[in-house]
């Protein structure tokens, strides 16, 4: 291992790599903070710039871009309730209400410090566990994937607002939307009334509609109210102090995010959702989640950012992508003649160890940019409400168009924006709908694949011990909110 680090360090000690890292950070911030742009799109856009670079410089640039964009998605999520990347939608649940209370600076500070802690810890975990954990994940079949997805779906009970019935209705509505498109197994068209729906309802435009555009209507309702004055942000030293009460939340959410994302296909969004739900379980004030509880911001940001190094584990050790972004990264490495997989540590050790070093070295720069930027970004909250409402609307529609380069994406956003606004009025929140959109295809595909592999025998779902454990856990997770003791009204334990 140490030999690999020495080799990587000697390769990285050049201005070209330093420039690549700086460009990656800035481009990542830019991509993440732009609604409608996912980190995978950012990596794909930056790929042509790496053609003339060395493999190490190019992978450093793309990995730092990936990392920075996963963090920066929280900035518009907190400030204007428009997630820059899908995973930041979970951050918006509590981050935006905090901003409405004049605590945008605190929310932004918590988000960057959570991201820094989670990313660094997760990178250390990656260095020591990459090969072993990815090998375990490779043994998973459709039964295990189905069971894990069911466990994820059971988290709806944690995401429910005041009414479990409302959350269930939202979840089922999300699953209903998710079946539109070409069937993942047989290839037949289901409920496709226009060619734009052949690949299903696109996730990013739906997400922008549910979270951001639905919120615009609320902004217009309240556009005649005075702006909440900004609360004073402490000095930089004080900013670090804001994260101290959340230490165990950070540790828990980082571990959850890492474990969830090491399974291929479970990206930052699922990690953020699961970490948020787990923290809500542990919290002494679960009833305040969704109305600006800082614990929610910390949990979702730690979960989402822990997923970046975790998703690299199956890519490096097995050559299979852990997320959409790592799928693009694999393409980039292949372009430079580097083949991800077990032999990467033998044939080109400088590449994986450069990735480890880049992940560790990028973080201090990101913290400086994040803490400094928090003072600058909060000024956005002082823009008059009517101007903000109109700009967010325009940004939503433009962002959804940019995600697909198709006007139909705008229709998707408009539909989900109006539906989301009406549903919010009766306490059906966007989070269960998004959970269903993320997990619906995963559940159906693996359910049917499991049955096909067992020629229709439903006992196949009990054939795997891991799956059985997941099913039992899913029942416990779902039932727990109904049986847990009612919290004290004061919020004290």
């Amino acid at each position, binding site marked *: 291992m140490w030999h690999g680090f020495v080799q990587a360090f000697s390769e990285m000690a050049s201005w070209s790599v330093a420039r690549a890292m700086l460009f990656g950070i800035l481009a990542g911030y830019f991509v993440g903070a732009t609604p409608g742009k996912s980190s995978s799109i950012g990596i794909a856009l930056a790929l042509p710039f790496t053609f003339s670079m060395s493999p190490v410089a190019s992978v450093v640039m793309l990995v730092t871009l990936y990392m920075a964009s996963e963090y920066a998605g929280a900035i518009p999520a907190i400030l204007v309730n428009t997630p820059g990347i899908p995973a930041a939608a979970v951050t918006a649940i509590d981050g935006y209400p905090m901003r409405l209370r004049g605590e945008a600076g605190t929310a932004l500070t918590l988000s960057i410090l959570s991201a820094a802690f989670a990313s660094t810890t997760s990178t250390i975990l990656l260095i020591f566990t990459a090969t072993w954990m990815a090998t375990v994940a490779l043994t998973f079949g459709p039964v295990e994937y189905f069971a894990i997805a069911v466990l994820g779906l059971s988290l709806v009970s944690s995401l429910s607002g005041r009414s479990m019935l409302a959350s269930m209705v939202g979840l089922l509505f999300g699953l209903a939307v998710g079946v539109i498109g070409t069937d993942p197994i047989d290839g037949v068209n289901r409920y496709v009334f226009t060619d734009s729906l052949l690949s299903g309802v696109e996730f990013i435009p739906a997400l922008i509609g549910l979270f951001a555009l639905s919120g615009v209507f609320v902004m217009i309702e309240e556009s005649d109210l005075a702006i909440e004055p900004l609360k004073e942000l402490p000095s930089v030293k004080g900013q670090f102090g804001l994260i101290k009460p959340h230490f165990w939340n950070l540790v828990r959410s980082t571990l959850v995010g890492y474990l969830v994302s090491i399974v291929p296909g479970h990206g930052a969004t699922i990690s953020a959702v699961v970490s948020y739900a787990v923290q809500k379980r542990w919290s002494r004030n679960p009833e305040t989640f969704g109305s600006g509880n800082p614990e929610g911001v910390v949990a979702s940001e730690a979960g989402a950012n822990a997923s970046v190094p975790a998703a690299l584990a199956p890519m490096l050790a097995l050559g299979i992508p852990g997320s959409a972004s790592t799928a693009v990264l694999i393409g980039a490495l292949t372009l430079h003649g580097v083949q991800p997989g077990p032999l990467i540590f033998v044939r080109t050790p400088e590449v994986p160890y450069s990735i480890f070093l880049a992940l560790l070295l990028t973080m201090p720069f990101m913290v400086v940019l994040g803490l400094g930027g928090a003072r600058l970004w909060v000024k956005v909250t002082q823009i008059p*409400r009517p101007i903000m409402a109109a700009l967010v609307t325009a940004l939503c529609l433009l962002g959804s168009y940019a995600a697909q380069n198709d006007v139909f994406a705008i229709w998707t956003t*408009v539909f989900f924006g109006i539906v989301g606004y009406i549903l919010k009025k009766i306490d059906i929140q966007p989070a269960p709908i998004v959970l269903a959109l993320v997990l619906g295809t995963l559940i159906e595909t693996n359910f049917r694949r499991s049955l096909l592999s067992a020629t229709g025998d439903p006992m196949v779902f009990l054939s795997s011990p891991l799956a059985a454990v997941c099913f039992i856990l899913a029942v416990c997770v779902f039932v727990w909110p109904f049986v847990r003791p009612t919290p004290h009204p004061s919020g004290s334990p």
Partner: protein
Amino acid sequence: MNGPGHAGFVVRAGVVETVVAVSLIAVAAWLWFGCYSFDEGGRGLMGAAAFPRGVAVLLGLSSLVLGAKGVRQMVGPGTDPVTVRRPSAVLLAAVLIVLYPLLLPRFGFYPTTGVWLLALLWCAGQRNILWALVTVLVFLVVVKLVFQMAMGIPLP
């Protein structure tokens, strides 16, 4: 437009819940009957229709429960009402938002967005025309520089 002193449009939560429940039951029925167009039959739970049918049944049942709760609230003692502040502004904004994707392909991005954003700013309560014009101009310049030139996104 309604001012700060206006309570806005108020309706009992039960009415909204009932309307949403009926709409979702219609979605469930669409899912159920839509299956017949692609159901190959004989494949049971392995077929393309199994999952949508399961979702349709569960969505229909949960919507029925939601509808029953809504009706009970309508006839029973009052619960928290649903309030829409500045309803005419919200309705006008919804109309403008629906109009945008209709007008965009016909008139192109910059003319459509310029006029549409001005109308939306007025609808949201921005009465200072100079500020509104500056906002529109800055937005369009940023879009040109960031989305079109830096990211290379082709705008209609």
